[in-house]
């Protein structure tokens, strides 16, 4: 049986009054939530000072389960809400939870600019390749040819590599991990939470109910196991010469830099002007 570090009990971090939760059995979002809470636990982040801002979707619903200051905002906009909150309250630790549709479709512009701006926020994008909450419509991350309720003949749009996008847009920290190995995911989220600027963490999640079923991807266990064959750690990937490189999505920390953090830079500029 899978065992947590002895001192971590996820129940200590959940709102008991919200149980039972609404996630479908086998939904990868549950594991992502567990990894986030575990990371928060290990970093000993004060939950009175922890603000979790989420968008709309199954991923967006997760904030309500976390015993902290939680904000369930509008579809696609959690990064923009979080920007205001973090600028107004630099003493808070602000975490954003968003889905692939929330973050890359309706909220794509906010993601690009949050990466560029580099305000201290940790953005967890749960990528299940589908619009789960609205019943399984195609998303910007749905693989080509896959069936969804709005691509009855198979998806014919190429999908997005969110991490490549975030890297290109200048995010200070970019990483991707699968839910198959929760401790590893927890470590990546921890690294993201500790990064002093904008951290983008893509969690490869799975939607068993409205995606897996439609595409005959098997049980939730099978969907999670599939992540192994489709994901390669970036170190492994980079060790292979170009023509032989796997086309699969790399995992691990994919980019990291120490550009100046936006909020601090803004406050310093204001202080310098006020001093004059």
């Amino acid at each position, binding site marked *: 049986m899978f065992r947590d570090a002895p001192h971590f009990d996820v129940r200590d971090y959940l*709102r008991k*009054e*919200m149980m039972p939760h609404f996630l479908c059995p086998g939904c990868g979002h549950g594991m992502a939530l567990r990894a986030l809470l575990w990371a928060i636990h290990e970093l000993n982040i004060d*939950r*009175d*000072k922890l*603000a979790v*801002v989420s968008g709309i979707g199954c991923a967006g619903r997760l*904030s*309500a389960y976390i*015993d*902290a*200051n*939680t*904000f*369930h*905002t*509008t579809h696609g*906009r959690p990064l*923009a*809400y*979080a*920007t*205001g*909150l*973090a*600028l*107004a*309250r630099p*003493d*808070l630790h602000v975490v954003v939870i968003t889905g692939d549709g929330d973050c890359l479709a309706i909220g794509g*512009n*906010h993601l*690009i*600019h949050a990466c560029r701006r580099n305000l201290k926020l940790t953005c967890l994008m749960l990528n299940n390749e589908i619009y789960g909450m609205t019943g399984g419509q195609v998303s910007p991350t749905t693989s080509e040819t896959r069936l969804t309720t709005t691509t009855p003949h198979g998806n014919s749009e190429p999908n997005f590599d969110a991490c490549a996008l975030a890297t290109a847009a200048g995010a200070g920290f970019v990483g991707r991990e699968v839910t198959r190995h929760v401790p590893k995911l927890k470590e990546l989220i921890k690294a993201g939470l500790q990064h002093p600027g904008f951290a983008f963490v893509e969690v490869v999640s799975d939607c068993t109910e409205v995606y897996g079923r439609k595409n005959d991807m098997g049980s939730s266990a099978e969907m999670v196991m599939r992540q192994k064959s489709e994901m390669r750690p970036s170190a492994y990937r980079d060790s292979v010469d170009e023509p032989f490189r796997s086309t699969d999505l790399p995992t691990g920390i994919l980019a990291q830099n120490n550009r100046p953090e936006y909020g601090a830079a*803004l406050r310093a*500029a*204001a202080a310098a*002007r*006020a001093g004059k």
Partner: protein
Amino acid sequence: MNAPDRHVPKAAAAKLLSGNAACAQGAIDAGCKFFAGYPITPSSEIAERLSTMLPAAGGVFIQMEDEIAAMAAVVGASMGGVKSLTATSGPGFSLKQENIGYAAGAEIPCVIVNVMRGGPSTGMPTRPSQADIFQTRYGSHGDYPMIVLAPASAREIYDETIRAFDLAELCRTPVILLYDQVIAQSSETVALGGRVPVHATRKWASGPREAYKPYAADADLVPPMPRPGDGYRTHTTGLTHSETGFPSQDPETVTRNLGRLYAKLDRHRDLIDSYEAVRCEDAEVVIVAIGISARAARRAVDACRAEGYKVGLFRPVTLWPFPEIALREATRNAKAILVPELNIGQLRLEIERQLRDRRVEGLHLISGEPITPAQIAASAAKLASEV
């Protein structure tokens, strides 16, 4: 309301100020500490000025990637406990609507300035218009109440900006300031001192954390707000919710909560309602107008009176909720009402709804020019001679 933070205004030195400049100054004097915006004519001077003034006042200015983001950031900053403002014009205001509705539903105080331009679509950026009267009231989806203030001069923009922040904090609700391009961009000599604004401070949650329910209202129907960091660890959502803040679709709960949103504004009507009635006591024709049209109408009233016509002016400063009782009072002796406005007939429709027993005529200009006092005087005199 908590103990008002009485603010002693600076000495009343007269300055040449545009309406937009007066708005920026009003925001600073009201204690605004956060502005997020996206440039759009004819509102941009507010952002430009605040980009200098806010950091100097210990606040934050940010130009976001679009109006949706700007509105979201303003709500986010206010959720953190900071008085927040955004300013825009028609197309940007349309984009803000979903998040304005969120602020209304989740009860997050904030102030939104809409300097109107003609439309539809990009319309006439540098021309005056008054065509967003309904958009301010009904622009977001679903049922929700809204406070909209419609000042008519630079001085009044200053006062109403401060009042907008006060009402937002007092009622835990978004407040919209609505004015037109002429007032926004013309400079007037303004003496800013002289009035002591109320300066409402937000009612924060206090007391035992276990017993606290974020949407359990006090007697004034406004619930104390949880400040992140104070240990209340609550949930805020745009979904219908119970007093706990958690989503609920229980018919009785959602009905009661939405009803309270309307009732809390009713409860504060004496502070919200503001209007001006000029020579209405004996008026046979009452002109009802806002903004630049009301200023032209004021001149028209004098011109008509000089010719012996009994004409008055009713100017709602609070546009929504409409000061209906005051309108009834001001039009008690009127046989006809004239509504001059820079649109196809928005304010007229509302006046017709309220004064169904009276003849209501509109004077509507959609050419992008302001209505002149002479045009209004001619219509008013004609109406007065007919009734």
